[in-house]
């Protein structure tokens, strides 16, 4: 009985411990940042599509979080993180770092502009949503590689 409890505790401990290690890896950090972006863009897109009512506070919170991601996103692609953890980062990030950095800078600029605009109504949100989200495809065209 005691052995079993210990064994279960060890399992739970291992389960809790393993992701803690992976979570520090740049590949995982940047994947989590992009997931956060996806959730925020989803919040905004549903308002733009008319699937959820416009909510100025929620929109500003999402835009602010996107701008925070944009601020540090480019720092999570150090040498040595080109592969592993199912990364979809394209080799072009490391062969054309200046081009990649420029894309991230444009993204940051558009995100900051959207936050500064603090959309007060749906038309205001639509006006910043297009210019902001065209950055997604513009960067993924060259710097993201689908592997499955």
């Amino acid at each position, binding site marked *: 009985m005691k052995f079993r409890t210990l064994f279960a505790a060890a399992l739970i401990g291992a389960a809790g411990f393993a992701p803690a290690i992976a979570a520090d890896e740049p590949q995982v950090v940047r994947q989590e940042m992009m997931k956060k*972006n996806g*959730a925020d863009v989803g919040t905004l*897109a549903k308002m733009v599509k008319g699937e959820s009512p416009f909510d100025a506070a929620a929109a500003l919170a999402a835009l602010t979080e996107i701008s925070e991601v944009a601020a540090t996103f480019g720092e999570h692609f150090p040498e040595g993180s080109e592969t592993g953890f199912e990364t979809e980062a394209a080799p072009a990030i490391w062969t054309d770092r200046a081009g990649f950095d420029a894309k991230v800078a444009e993204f940051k600029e558009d995100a900051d502009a959207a936050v500064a605009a603090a959309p007060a109504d749906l038309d205001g949100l639509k006006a910043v949503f297009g210019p902001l*989200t065209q950055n997604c495809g513009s960067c*993924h065209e060259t710097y993201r590689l*689908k592997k499955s």
Partner: protein
Amino acid sequence: MKRLALGLGLAAVAGAAVAFVATAPSPVAPERLEAISELEGDAQAGETLFWAGGCVSCHAAPEAAGEEQLVLSGGVRLASDFGTFIGPNISPHPEAGIGGWSVAQFANAMLAGVSPDGGHYYPAFPYGSYARMSDQDIADLFAFLGTLPESATASLPHEIPFPFNIRRSLGGWKLLFFSDEPRVALGGDDAQIARGQYLVEGPGHCGECHTPRNALGGFVGDAWLAGAQNPEGEGVIPNLTPGGKSISGWSATDIAYYLESGFTPDFDSVGGSMVKVQKNMARLTSGDREAIAAYLKALPERPNGWE
């Protein structure tokens, strides 16, 4: 011994003669060309085909955006296992472009991959898909192209090494792989699915990247739209059938929204070569995007074509 040599020699000459005849470019039947020539081309209707066909992705100048995309000066480089193809000028300029062409010459290019001087085009120009287009759509697209601005930029030669630079050999490729038949038999008579099938298998030429190819550049049998290795380098082109995990969990509405906005159901975005394609798809009517989605949902399940 001498006789044997002579016999072999004759056989070789006969074989070469057969091959020569078999690989000769075969243009569209004269009756069909005549019928197309008599049609009134509707430029406005042709614009839909223009975006569905993705002409700008290869024929606009590299990095062209917005209105510049309508200047079809060519110059986009398309890397492949066979060499690098460079999109030619198809603006209405009389010398540098196709301004001097008749609609019959255009139909021969689009439907049979045959140039005005009677040679074969490389299938990097996706006539293997365009061959499914209707006579009226060919006439309409030709009319629309004629309304675009002229560009005097000269087309660049493809950078294709031996033996693929022997254009006559493309006759062999056509013998083996060219078809204007439907790619899949779906049964039923759903008009929306039929419209989707026409757009995807014809002008949209989706299968050119989303279907795996063999070493000779022909489609692998029974793997239509099952996804493939990226022909331009690393990575894969997603499986569009309900058999892979790429988009099998997406609803028809999700697919249509992706083609319109570039967003996946979890608000990841379009990437790679599909970025340009999606911008073209966004120009279609919502009805056409829904038709494409309905067709993809109706496809037979296939495992991933790259595995």
